[in-house]
């Protein structure tokens, strides 16, 4: 068992859940509210220095009773030690955790991917939008277990939507604001801009 687990327990007490070992890797469960503090502590405490974020991902089990897990792989480059930190979330409940982007810039796209694939929201992420699927993707979150392998919409519906998409819809709101393309936008995108979605309205003439 990784000695960092005992040090975590001594520092954070009940915020640290169970710890176990699987195939030689140590896994420690952390309460959702303490996540950011625990991560900052693990990164900055001299005898631990997990300075490298290997991966951020999530796991949903086939067993519906089990909670959804957000998995962080941490590594100390100097000590060559690994630690896997997990946060458990109720699949039907509030799927929100704190973002670790303020600690590691590398978490930016990784968290966006978890959001895209699992629908988990990262509080404090600077730019949380879909990354692999397109911005207006409406079928849900593909890696959730209730998502069918072939997608929610029929192939005919998918083709219809792809053909009906406005060419400007391939740009994000932010980009269209830079290009000052407001006047050429379709009505629904104008409406989204007006609702204050990323990007700015042009100054009235």
């Amino acid at each position, binding site marked *: 068992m990784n000695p960092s687990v005992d040090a975590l327990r001594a520092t954070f007490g009940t915020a640290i859940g169970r710890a176990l070992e*699987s*195939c*030689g*890797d140590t*896994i420690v469960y952390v309460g959702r509210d303490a996540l950011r503090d625990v991560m900052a502590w693990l990164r900055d405490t001299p005898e631990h220095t997990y*300075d*490298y*974020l*290997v*991966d951020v*991902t999530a*796991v*949903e*089990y*086939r*067993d519906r009773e089990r909670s959804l897990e957000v*998995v962080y*792989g941490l590594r100390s*480059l100097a000590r*060559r030690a*690994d630690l*896997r930190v997990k946060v458990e979330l109720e699949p039907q409940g509030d799927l929100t955790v704190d973002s670790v982007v303020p600690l*590691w*810039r*590398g*978490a*930016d*796209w*990784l968290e966006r*991917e978890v959001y895209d*694939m699992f629908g988990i929201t990262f509080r404090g992420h600077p730019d949380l939008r879909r*990354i*692999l*699927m*397109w911005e207006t993707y409406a079928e849900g979150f*593909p*890696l959730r277990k209730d*998502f069918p*392998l072939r997608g929610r919409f029929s192939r005919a519906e998918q083709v219809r939507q792809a053909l009906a998409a406005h060419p400007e819809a*391939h*740009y*994000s709101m*932010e*980009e269209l604001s*830079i*290009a000052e393309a407001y006047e050429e936008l379709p009505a629904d995108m104008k409406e989204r801009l007006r609702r204050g979605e990323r990007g700015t309205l042009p100054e009235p003439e």
Partner: protein
Amino acid sequence: MSKRTVELELATPGLDARGEPLRVPLGVAEPNLDAEHMLINIGPQHPATHGVLRLVVELDGETVVQVIPHLGYLHSGFEKLGEYRHYNQIIPLTDRTDYLSPMANNVGFALAAEKLMGITITPRCTVLRVIACEMSRIISHMVWLGTTSIDLGAFTPFLWAFQERERIYNLQEMWTGARLTTSVTRVGGLMADVPDDFVAGLRHFTRTFPKTLSEIDRVLTRNAVWVGRTQGVGVLTAGEAINHSLSGPMLRASGVAYDVRKDKPYLDYETYDFDVVVGEHGDVYDRYLVRLEECSQSNRILQQALDRLPDGPVNIADPRVILPPKSRAMNDMEAMIYHFKQVMEGVKAPVGEAYVGIENPKGELGTYLVSDGTAKPVRWRIRPPSFINLSALPRMAAGHLLSDLIAINASVDIVMGEVDR
């Protein structure tokens, strides 16, 4: 502000008191274009983006203000598909992620599945997998070198690099029957042992390959255009590289001596004699130097692996994991039962989870497998090195010229099959 001067065409004759053309510093006469930022779209169908990457670039004149990458044009849902496949059925999917180094991906997945199941592979298989990994590193770096030199205007190294890659592809074809989609590993072993003349062919390659490397070195390393286009471009410090979770040559070019082969050894890499190549400045030029030198280190490892290649079986002797030979399955009742159970039910993994990171050409390829005791993983996660390396692109490119953006993007060494998965 540039120190160059230009001749101005004025409404007046444009001559000074002595009759010389008026010369003024560029900055003085430049019209104010601050407000006019331009948005340009590069890709997804653009040769310089190395696949279907789309970059939306905000430009101030020719200077990049910000880069907004758009991904997902090649998203195939491999991770989702993997949840519906047996462990051995996932291996063909790994070919198609980083399709420039398919053999190394096969090895990465097989190692993770074996860690999950607690399988120890045979000595011959271990060495052959090292050969597979290092061959992949060479072809991947050769593609990188060729395409990057084309991006920066040098055509000749491209031809040399692709010729070398072709020779490795011939060896891969000899071994697996496929050039690109090799699927060379199985859980617990390999899909086949190497054929008779493979070792001789690879020996010939390792003897002749250094000559091409030195030719490429001679034509690029001190080439004024190459140096001018790459030095000081896209710099990341060691701290930034770690903070961005970069791995592989991108991390080492910034001066961080981290190589999974040395620091968390797998496949007995600790017993091979090779150097970890580390850069100093973290710019495009250092990334080039690191990759070039890694090719000769891989060549060294290949030679050592060929020298020590032991005889013996490539597969473990466990009929629950390894398919019996077809002839036995047809003639022997017990073998037929094992064959049937493996094909119909698959290899069951115990409850648990395993993460294995291997040093792929692009960086650390992680395979994270979670099992609930059935023959299909609950979760198969690929830690995609080029996806994470690419996420530092907006940071590296801001403030550079548009043409430097091409050089920086090339230096990341992305392959979209893996970025989008």
